[in-house]
């Protein structure tokens, strides 16, 4: 199976091609942002380096979020459009799971997170099973770091934190978990993306595929507070005219 994998959920950009789980070519760009400029040219370069024609792509794996709202929208829009127009399979994977997969040979709980500002993070908890596959232990969520640290207490497992911006969080983490392993990393590798996406379910309705924001917009949150449950049931907001 010929795979194209895409992740622009945080500052780095990762594009990879693989045949099954074997990476053929990849582009990692850590130079902050401008994913909107770099994404499609990077896909073009990597796919051509691989020797694939566009129509050779059987499956597109995309990091669906959480992450930067704009970043995940760029990747998801590109991936869903490509999958649909090329008649390829589409697979969405958690951006946090991909980051967790960067950690190998750790038998405890892996806690990948992205900074979501004001003491909040997007985080999940993952653990390798006996077969070496990553299993989700705590669902990805938008959570205060302190609440996350409290939650982790219940797991009674060695912990490995992986994410960017460790300078901000290292002390807080170590204060609660002095033995925790801390990995300063936020570059999802092509291998991590493909390993997870190869075994994940295929999206059935590409049309309806959207990012996992894990956060309502501020405007919707404030609006919803003032509405009756009757009003909130209606989600018919788009009209073809």
């Amino acid at each position, binding site marked *: 199976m010929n795979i194209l994998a895409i992740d622009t959920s945080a500052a780095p950009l990762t594009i990879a091609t693989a045949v099954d789980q074997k990476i053929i070519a990849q582009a990692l760009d850590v130079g902050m942002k401008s994913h909107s400029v770099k994404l499609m*040219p990077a896909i073009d370069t990597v796919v051509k380096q691989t020797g694939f024609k566009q129509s050779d792509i059987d499956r597109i794996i995309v990091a669906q979020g959480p992450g930067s709202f704009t970043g995940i929208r760029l990747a998801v829009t590109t991936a869903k459009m490509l999958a649909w127009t090329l008649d390829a399979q589409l697979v969405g994977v958690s951006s946090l799971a991909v980051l967790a997969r960067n950690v190998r040979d750790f038998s405890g709980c892996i806690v990948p997170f992205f900074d979501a500002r004001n003491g909040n993070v997007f985080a999940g908890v993952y653990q390798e099973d006996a077969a070496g596959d990553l299993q989700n232990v705590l669902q990805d969520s938008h959570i205060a770091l302190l609440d996350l640290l409290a939650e982790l207490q219940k797991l009674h497992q060695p912990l490995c934190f992986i994410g960017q911006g460790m300078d901000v969080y290292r002390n807080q983490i170590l204060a609660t978990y002095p033995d925790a392993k801390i990995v300063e990393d936020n570059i999802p590798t092509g291998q991590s993306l493909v390993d997870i996406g190869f075994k994940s379910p295929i999206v059935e309705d590409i049309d309806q595929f959207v990012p996992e924001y894990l956060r309502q917009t501020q405007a919707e949150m404030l609006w919803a507070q003032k509405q009756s449950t009757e009003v909130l049931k209606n989600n018919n907001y788009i009209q073809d005219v």
Partner: protein
Amino acid sequence: MSDVLILAFESSCDETSVAVVKNGREVLSNIIATQIKSHQRFGGVVPEVASRHHVEQIIHCTKLALKEAQVDYQDLAAVAVTYGPGLVGSLLIGLMAAKAISWAHDLPLIGVNHLAGHIYAANLVAEIKYPALALVVSGGHTELVYVKAAGEFEILGDTRDDAVGEAYDKVGRMLGISYPAGKTIDQWAHEGKDTYNFPRAMLHENNLNFSFSGIKSAVINTLHHAEQVGISINKKDVATSFQNDILDILLAKTQKALHKYPVQQLIVAGGVAANSGLRERLQQELANQVELIFPPLRLCGDNAAMIGAYAYIKYQKNQFASLTLNADPSLDFEYCNNNESLL
């Protein structure tokens, strides 16, 4: 020469639209999914919400556009997309979608200025004769644009503050009309009387610029004052007075521009071009000196057919974009540099 079919994307604000246009003149399909109902919850467009809706709608619209036009990728000559001006998050969705289709099927990519699109909606109903003058009146813009030749634009004048559509929406809000308010104010304006005689800003200044924040403040003050002293307000009279004010300004500046830049055609473009009062007045006052082109209502608001119409001009000039094309939220035309001295 064989027909040039362009698949066009537009997502600059709160409409997701995909169209197929033949030779820049004929609409084969023009699918528009509007988010208005969603943003009415907030009293105006919320950018993050708009971006999210675009991702939800983009394939649905593309699918329908191809189906309705009964075309396949091999029938297409190019893929076009609005890359500015507009909301950056919104623009990016159309942009990524267009790049994906362009790359997947080896089709050239064309980046279109949304305002050029509004103007070239005219080509879908008549043939533009150059030089032409365009009055662009929309939610974000109020400009008099000189269209020297195909694809050559110069701003002769624009607004110093609010856009005319913006003024309609803000005044509408004060009158308790849900967003966007233009259409309702237009209706009310035909039912009331001009009793307030609001100030006509910059009417006699010797330039082609506009200002609409003064009239907006005048309406607010009137409403506040009435509330304070407890007199009731006839909202329809306010609407009539407001619309008359706006139309006087638009007509006067357009007259002035036509005088300085004689053209055969006046193109009225953008969402506010749907205004029936504007259409009536232009017809009455200018039809004898210039050919008027009003695109039909569906082509005045944001739509991808107009993007396909303008993309055809760039296609003929071989003005293609690369896959690095980025959104440019504040894209605009160049200003005409000898304008001041002419006046």
